[in-house]
């Protein structure tokens, strides 16, 4: 039932993210007529969609009310949720899990649509490559998504979205302007090193992102467990 509740709470965000995805696809449709255009999309526009999806779909931790309201002494329905015989690990896990599944679904749909709508891409990329690319995006997104989950336990909902975008932007800037280990370069993993361009899976980057995501998730859990209502 917690999955159903999480779905009810996030469905409008999912719709908004799908709408944003459609906007990006419309914009890309004209740009993807030449191979450099496809490369440009893979390098820049797709990571933006990933960051956007992760920011929007991470949910708001345990609380269904913004954290800012909690600090003002109102808890919304959070007290009812916390009176249920459910651990905070399960509450946070379900909430984070449904958002991650929605995010993975959005990225999967995007990859399918990207492939079908771009004749140029269909000429140079096989469906298997496209599937590997979708897996790469979902894997590399793990760290960004879990950053958003962590921020959800600390910040008001709208600040969480901005916080994730700014945090991701800073990470991108640092990874492009400062010598950075390749395995830790998440945005490169989604771009130049992705199966669409490098034709190999960036497993080391995916593993790094997943590892970082786990650390961020358990940090969020520790905060959620310590939080008083």
């Amino acid at each position: 039932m917690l999955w159903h509740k999480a779905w009810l709470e996030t469905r409008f965000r999912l719709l908004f993210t799908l709408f944003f995805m459609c906007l990006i696809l419309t914009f890309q449709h004209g740009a993807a007529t030449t191979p450099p255009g496809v490369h440009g999309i893979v390098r820049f526009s797709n990571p933006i969609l990933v960051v956007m999806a992760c920011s929007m779909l991470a949910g708001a931790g345990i609380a269904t009310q913004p954290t800012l309201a909690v600090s003002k002494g109102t808890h919304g329905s959070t007290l009812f949720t916390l009176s249920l015989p459910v651990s905070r690990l399960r509450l946070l896990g379900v909430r984070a899990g449904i958002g991650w599944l929605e995010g993975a679904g959005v990225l999967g749909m995007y990859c399918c649509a990207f492939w079908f709508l771009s004749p140029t891409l269909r000429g140079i990329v096989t469906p298997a490559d496209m599937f590997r690319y979708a897996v790469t995006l979902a894997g590399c997104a793990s760290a960004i998504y879990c950053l958003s989950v962590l921020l959800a336990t600390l910040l008001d909902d709208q600040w969480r979205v901005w916080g994730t975008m700014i945090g991701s932007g800073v990470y991108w800037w640092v990874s492009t302007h400062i010598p950075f280990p390749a395995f830790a370069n998440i945005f490169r993993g989604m771009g130049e090193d992705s199966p669409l361009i490098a034709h190999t899976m960036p497993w080391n980057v995916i593993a790094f992102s997943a590892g970082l995501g786990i650390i961020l998730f358990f940090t969020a859990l520790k905060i959620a467990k310590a939080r008083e209502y």
Partner: protein
Amino acid sequence: MTDFVIETNQLCKSFASRPALRGLDLHVPVGSIYGFLGRNGAGKTTTIKTLMGLLRSNSGTAQVFGTPVVDADRSVEIRRRIGFVTEDKELYPYMTVEQLIRFTRPFFPKWRDDLERRYLQLFELPLQRKIPDLSKGMRSKLMLLLAISRGAELLILDEPTDGLDPAAIEDVLRELVTIAASSGTTIFFSSHQLAEVELIADHIGIIDQGRMVVAGSLDDMKTRYQRLQVVFANSVQLPSHWVEGVESVRQEGRVVSILASHNADAIVDQAQSLPGSEVERFPVTLKEIFLEHVRSN
């Protein structure tokens, strides 16, 4: 198995530098209907939240069903046996009444379908209506339904009749007594409505400034507490020291009103020994006991 469903000893909780509980001792007997009274900010909700594991105490101990509430894993098991009504009566705004019942039911293996049907009918709750479209009274009734239908061994109710009209309050109070009598459920509830507490509670605890100032069986309390009215024929000459048991002494002209918490016979003897005095005894209401303690504090 302990005789108390809820037991706290020297429980302390502070928010920043502001103490909310200052060594609270609370003992709720199994099967009792326990009225938890106090002024706004006395520490009632803080106590309830601590018992539910929503707040952590700074010191002291708190146990429910003999299990410490600070243990997060065991706290889940405790909550499985508790029905809880929150003070603010906030529920998921995106669900209907029916969806909320369907959502809550699977968490509680002892869910009582018969009680669910009974209270749906009694409270006249519209199944298809969304939560934001319910009045505060209806939300209170829905929360009560969700708490009672859990088949809980303990109901913790924070201002359960808040927002209800007098007829609904009557219904709810009657049902609480029925539940306690028929299934042996312990009911621990906070309220500002002294009259309704007096109507159904068999045990009382009065908290003030984070401390328990009076606690015990209501019958026992009413037997022990007495108001003595001493009327003097001429001038009033009160003793400098009263015998033990005098909680307060108020004088208006030749009439002196004494509230005795115990030892009333000895106090009467002392009053009668004063020159020109006539003493009468009066029973004391819960309101008088409450006001006496929270004012003197």
